[in-house]
């Protein structure tokens, strides 16, 4: 994600590119039901209320990591990045608490993760990646991470995987809730939600504002010796407002609109020991979706139009304010048809217009892109599920090849208390060059080819009831994958001019294992859910052009070989206890795998208590972060917070 530019000859200026250009309880994979794999369980939701794309339906054989509302409950006041890094072994790279956070799945880069909301990509069109610390958990009812290439479903960028932010149906009647949380190092969060649903209309509003000083202490060796300092220039203020409206025009037709506004003003945390140049970044995003859904006897039609606008302003003592304004005007239409109960077909098309006014482009640019897709789900028997998807994208200059997916799940055997599924999936994905890749001056390269990903995976899914009463259930899933990304884009220096310019530079191969196991136990008033998850990731450059000076056969920078998470969620009467431990293995900080960052484990926990008074429900939650007080760095030279606490109070009325 780091780009370099050549304003002038020194590393300092080169680095501005960097600033400007890039500037779970692993919840069970089959989250809601121990008995049924993914999309079956989700099918129980009435279609008309499922506003977000449920990712599993057309993804047989794919692996998911899902955080449902229960898993997200202790993280209501956190960001998507914080929740995912605390509860899953997925690797998120962050420059500090609340700072830029990006996720790479299966050893790919941050720009190979597509982040979606209402079926539209939230990745900045300029950078090609999303900042998951700008997205509050409060705006999503669930988070589903689909591992592996899935461009057929999600379009560009879903090469390593996709993060789908889901919304939940609005409950009948009127509900309001308020949340206030105060924590260490000046953390303060205020949240308000309200919703109302009648037979015809449902409305939901959610607002969150959070601030933090992040002035936590750390130790550093300076000229005078070891000294204790407080983190400088890391304060932030972020707010988010979501508004959903849905109108049932008749029993078969629904009109809906969704808006999501986020604003963030962050000081940029300097690296350990370097001079503070008072860098500051302001991000503002507006996202509007308008949709119409018509149900038919055997299917439905969905038409959506959306406008997404992003502003990124960056400035420091060394750099006058840099402006980036981008907007995407887009429309999607899709028709889902179910000719037989076990066969479902979805076909659709989308168009996008990008408009960008970015200082580095030297003017306003516009660009059109389009795509057509078809998704097919066929269950020949109750024990076999098949999906076949394909997407053809159209982008200027270079057309990406067809991106197909073929997936299957087969129930190998089943007894009264056990079932074992075999899963397999193969897919081709693509990532269109970003606007920076194409238009940055100097260096932008309009002739870049899209990056291509080819991945395949196979795995087992096992479920068993460990007792006759089916109150002790165990699910285990094991996946092995291989993924090859070709025409991987980097920004090497042109030897003749010295300018940095993106090129289709190399081929990268990643392969690994993903294992997870979830235990659910219910004993009288006590409920336990425990999940352990582990990933092994090997990611290497396998080939490169002569311009590519990085060595082959070394583990890529910032891809941990080993990562794990262990979560327990307990509930007893009106008490809740949640523990989230995550382990991140050694990561190399250079392309030759010479320097490494030490591994670390972080333990978070929360204790909650609910009280009911009439129609009011009060929840008090004490949250502890980094309870072992580990001094660690996620990104080199960026100190993470020591042990910290937060106390939150939530009042809900219904």
């Amino acid at each position: 994600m780091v780009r370099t530019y050549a304003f002038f000859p020194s590393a300092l200026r080169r680095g501005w590119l960097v600033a400007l250009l890039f500037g779970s309880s692993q919840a069970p994979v089959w989250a809601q039901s121990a008995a049924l794999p993914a999309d079956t369980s989700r099918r129980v939701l009435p279609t008309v209320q499922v506003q977000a794309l449920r990712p599993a339906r057309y993804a047989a054989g794919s692996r998911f990591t899902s955080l449902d509302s229960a898993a997200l409950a202790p993280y209501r006041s956190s960001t998507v990045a914080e929740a995912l890094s605390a509860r899953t072994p997925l690797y998120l790279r962050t420059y500090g608490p609340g700072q830029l956070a990006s996720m790479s799945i299966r050893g790919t880069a941050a720009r190979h993760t597509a982040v979606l909301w209402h079926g539209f990509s939230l990745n900045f069109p300029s950078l090609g990646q999303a900042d998951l610390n700008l997205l509050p958990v409060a705006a999503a009812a669930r988070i589903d991470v689909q591992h592996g290439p899935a461009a057929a479903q999600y379009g560009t960028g879903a090469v390593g995987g996709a993060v789908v932010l889901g919304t939940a149906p609005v409950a009948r009647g009127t509900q309001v809730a308020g949340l206030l949380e105060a924590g260490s190092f000046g953390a303060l969060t205020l949240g308000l939600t309200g919703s109302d649903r009648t037979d015809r209309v449902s409305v939901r509003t959610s607002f969150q504002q959070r601030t933090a000083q992040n002035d936590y202490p750390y130790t550093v060796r300076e000229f005078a010796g070891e000294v204790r300092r407080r983190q400088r220039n890391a304060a932030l203020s972020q707010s988010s407002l979501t508004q959903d409206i849905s109108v049932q025009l008749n029993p078969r037709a629904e009109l809906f609109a969704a808006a999501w506004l986020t604003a963030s003003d962050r000081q940029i945390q300097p690296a350990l020991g370097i001079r503070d140049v008072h860098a500051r970044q302001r991000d503002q995003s507006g996202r509007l979706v308008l949709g119409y859904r018509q149900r038919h006897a055997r299917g439905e039609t969905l038409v959506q139009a959306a406008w997404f606008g992003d502003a990124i302003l960056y400035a420091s003592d060394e750099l006058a304010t840099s402006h980036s304004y981008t907007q995407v005007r887009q429309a999607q239409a899709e028709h889902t048809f179910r000719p037989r109960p076990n066969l479902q077909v979805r076909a659709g098309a989308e168009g996008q217009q990008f408009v960008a006014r970015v200082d580095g482009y030297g003017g306003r640019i516009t660009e059109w892109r389009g795509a057509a897709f078809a998704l097919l789900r066929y269950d020949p028997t109750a024990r076999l599920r098949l999906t076949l998807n394909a997407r053809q994208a159209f982008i200027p200059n270079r057309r990406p090849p067809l991106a197909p997916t073929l997936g299957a799940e087969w129930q190998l055997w089943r007894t009264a208390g056990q079932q074992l599924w075999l899963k397999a999936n193969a897919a081709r994905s693509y990532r269109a060059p970003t606007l920076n890749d194409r238009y940055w001056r100097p260096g932008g390269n309009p002739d870049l080819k899209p990056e291509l990903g080819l991945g395949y995976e196979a795995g087992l899914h096992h479920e068993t009831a460990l007792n006759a009463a089916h109150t002790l259930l165990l699910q285990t899933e094991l996946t092995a994958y291989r993924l090859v990304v070709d025409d991987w884009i980097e920004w090497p220096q042109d030897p003749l001019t010295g300018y940095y310019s993106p090129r289709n530079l190399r081929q990268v191969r990643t392969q690994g294992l993903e294992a997870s196991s979830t235990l659910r136990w219910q004993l009288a008033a006590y409920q336990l859910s425990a999940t352990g998850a582990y990933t092994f990731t090997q990611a290497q450059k396998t080939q490169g052009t002569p311009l590519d000076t990085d060595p082959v056969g070394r583990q890529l920078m910032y891809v941990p070989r080993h990562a794990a998470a262990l979560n327990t969620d307990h509930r007893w009467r009106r008490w809740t206890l949640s523990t989230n431990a995550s382990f991140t293995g050694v990561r190399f900080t250079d392309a030759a795998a010479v320097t490494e960052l030490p591994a670390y484990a972080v333990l978070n926990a929360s204790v909650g208590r609910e009280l009911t008074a009439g129609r009011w429900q009060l929840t008090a939650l004490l949250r502890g972060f980094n309870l072992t007080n580990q001094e660690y760095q996620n990104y080199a030279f960026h100190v993470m917070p020591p042990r910290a606490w937060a106390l939150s109070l939530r009042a809900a009325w219904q």
Partner: protein
Amino acid sequence: MKNVFRPGFPALRTFAGLLAAGLLFSSCDDDKVTTEPAVVVAGQSVLVVNEGQFNQPNSAVSLYNKSTKAVERNLFQKQNQRELGNVAQSMTVIGDRGYIVVNADGRVEVVDMKNFKAVAQITNLSQPRYLTSTGSRAFLTEWRGNYPNYTAGRVSVIDLSTNTVAQQITVGVNPEQILLAGGKLYVANSYGNTLSVINPGNNTVESSVTVPDGPRQLAEDAAGNIWVLSDAFLTRFNPATPTQQTRIGITSDYRNGNLRLNAARDQVYVSIAGAVYRFATTATALPTTPFLRRNLTGLGIDPQDNTVYAGAGSYTADGRVIRYTTTGTVIDSFNVAIAPNSFLFY
């Protein structure tokens, strides 16, 4: 060491390394430093300045011993147990002290050349670039303003007995190299087309020399002529007649260019547009065939034997130094830290 970035050696290797360096047996007691052998062996040492990654403190000075061929990747970090800082731009030796200019941190680290331990810091500088000396005083170029709104830069006069800034002299925008020649200081104002000429006697700019756009690097040859590397020209002039200039056209290249002279100071080396050219100081045009076809981040000529040291690499991995004979034949190579930009022969 807490919180300090830990270089990636398994503990065993670290132990072995300490053993080899004899450090396990030398006490941590500073009183005993007299028994410590010199880390930087005079006459045998090549110090390689590595810029490191942007906005990271991992710039480094690597040490290469010409007789043992041993490399210490990050000498400053090893001897001081802390990182050097954000972008090491240049290093200059004055007497038995080394002055490492850490650009983005606005700081100069002063080290004892025997053991490379920091003895002082000059701080609160503004984007410092290059340093030269007249003996008891050092002159340091600094940029001011921010991208792209740079303002007139300055030369800070540093009292070397106290390592403090005694006076500041305003020069042109974004001053790069500074050269002492014929008793005058020449400053290359890279956002413009002039050299400022400073009289070090009274610390004032007494004149300026107009040169082609973008002057950055300076050198004085054996005949006393001054060489200037600009964006698209190499310029030579006699300080007595600065307006009479010989200009040699080169491929326009915004990079540093690594203008260097051989030991006798009668041959020029320059690294432009992916190649290194070498020619006599009397030349009036660039040779048609380059000395080396290689894209370099740094270039150095050993004044003992004219061995050519070429630094190459990206900013994502450790760089490599390739040594060449005067005929351009590869001798050998070794790895250093990220982005080697210059060599200092000590």
